[in-house]
């Protein structure tokens, strides 16, 4: 069995996830309605998820050595929205968050990201995004998936969030508001999370928007070493307690904006707490012989 990190097992500071069952077994334990071909009604394919998890699992454990805290806040079953900050010029954060729910949860869950449109425009990326349940961020997708009791992964900052430069890496840009209306309409809990380290893994110094337009993507992040290849820095994911708002989703804008602000503050708080804890851990490590 996998050992889940978090306060319940290894304290708030967490522990690297330990492998005692296979990645394939984890995928087999997903509670999704796969048919005789291993495909669910949304086209999620067991075989593709297994392949993806082999790659992302190795990156998670050995390259980024991701530390995951508070995973027990994610409901083991039923609908939910993981809502967090973007960090890193490319979608390292999304890939590691969905790997965390596969590796750290028991039973494992597949987080389904609401991704940028361009991902489905290109060959290969379109296929892999579809087969692993990562759909374009349309309200129709989000609503249907939540009504089917799926776990969504949402970055309300959108592409502006991944475009943050290195010196802005812990800031939050404006949040969209649609996710709160959806949460209210579908009575879904919002599980806030902070993703730390993405901005150091891909230290963006400049975003090439014109080049991006030529390539069919929002922008191309450039780093001091030019290419946006992630550095092997340690990443952290801090999940917070679920937020449940009462309402119908038809509330006035100022009410919704108030809820959005609460989510944003909670994420900002998780970022600050995570940074402080990371700092104190580093000091502790430096004091060791």
């Amino acid at each position: 069995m996998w050992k889940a990190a978090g306060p319940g097992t290894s304290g708030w500071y967490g522990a690297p996830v330990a492998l005692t069952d296979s990645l394939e077994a984890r995928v087999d334990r997903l509670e999704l309605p796969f048919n005789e071909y291993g495909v669910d009604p949304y086209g999620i394919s067991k075989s593709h998820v297994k392949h993806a998890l082999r790659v992302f699992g190795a990156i998670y454990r050995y390259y980024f050595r991701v530390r995951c805290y508070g995973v027990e806040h994610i409901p083991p079953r039923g609908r939910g929205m993981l809502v967090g900050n973007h960090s890193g010029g490319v979608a390292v954060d999304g890939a590691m968050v969905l790997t965390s729910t596969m590796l750290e949860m028991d039973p494992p869950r597949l987080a389904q990201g609401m991704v940028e449109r361009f991902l489905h425009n290109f060959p290969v990326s379109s296929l892999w995004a579809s087969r692993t349940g990562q759909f374009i961020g349309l309200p129709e997708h989000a609503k249907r998936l939540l009504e089917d009791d799926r776990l969504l992964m949402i970055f309300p900052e959108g592409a502006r969030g991944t475009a943050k430069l290195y010196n802005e890496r812990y800031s939050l840009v404006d949040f969209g508001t649609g996710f709160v209306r959806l949460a209210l309409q579908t009575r879904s809990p919002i599980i806030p999370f902070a993703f730390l380290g993405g901005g150091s893994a891909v230290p963006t110094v400049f975003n090439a928007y014109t080049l991006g337009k030529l390539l069919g993507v929002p922008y191309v992040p450039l780093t001091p070493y030019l290419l946006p290849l992630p550095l092997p820095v340690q990443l952290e994911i801090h999940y917070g307690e679920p937020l449940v708002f009462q309402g119908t989703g038809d509330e006035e804008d100022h009410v919704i904006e108030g809820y959005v602000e609460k989510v944003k503050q909670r994420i900002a708080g998780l970022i600050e707490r995570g940074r402080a804890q990371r700092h104190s851990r580093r000091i502790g490590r430096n004091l060791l012989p």
Partner: protein
Amino acid sequence: MRVLIPGISGGIARQLALHLHARGHQVAGIDTRPWAEAKEAGIQVYRGDVRKRAAEDVFRRWRPEAVVHMATVTAFTVPGKERGRINLDGTKAVFDHCAAHGVKQVLFVGRHTFYGAAPDSPLYHSEDEPPRALEAIPELADLVAADLYAATALWRLPKMTTAVLRLPYTLGAPGTGTLSSFLKGRRVPLVLGYDPLFHVLQEEDVVTALTLALEKQVRGLFNVAGPPPIPLSVIVRETGRKAVPLPAPLLSMLLGRAGLPRLSMGALDHLRFPIVVDNRRFLDATGFEYRHSVADSLRIFRESSPVLPAGGQGR
């Protein structure tokens, strides 16, 4: 019930006619194509075009209570402007005759390709969505127009019970239609780097769905689907074919050559992006339950339409 089926000589329409007849309905049809066995089955087929005067005579003399309009064609069977005339003028003629001769109920049998294949459209299409990406594939425009025209009967002819049914790809033994034609060869071209979900419904289940729609007298727009969709690559593999993934630019160059139909480049979008429908409204209205799983449908097609050995003869 007296049921008239324009387009009765098509594969699924014949099965529907026999099924309705077996359930005690009186069935007749209009078609330019012959159906020799119809008469001995107790089904009257009037040879002719629904757009011609003789078709109106059928409505006047035979006095149908219900009409199942299946006389539409795709770009795979009728190329060029004639297709547009059959689909749009034919549909107009059918509805005009229905209105003029007191038909109480009309089913327009449309296609789920109405919604179009686009990278940024919702995976599951509800009936409330508009058609998309028509500019990419003008071959579908007349079918979409016919569908939209049929839907106007809901407010133009309020005394008539009209239902527009959007059916997915069908497979049978071996079956007729777009998907069966696409799978006819040993090798099936796919677009490299894409593998869209396809909704597939067994022909017997199509007949059940249409019969339910008729007998339950449903009114409105309905997506009809059976088992959940599956990737196209699985369909190709499980029907014993060999997938040949080709880059989109190469495949578009091959359209109209190498046995591929002459279609616009946008048609390739149907091999890149899914068209999947939300059928909850139809299930609620009719209680439809499919009998054939996807595995069943693919096995039946594979057994009835095996791939020919290289250079050999088929059954």
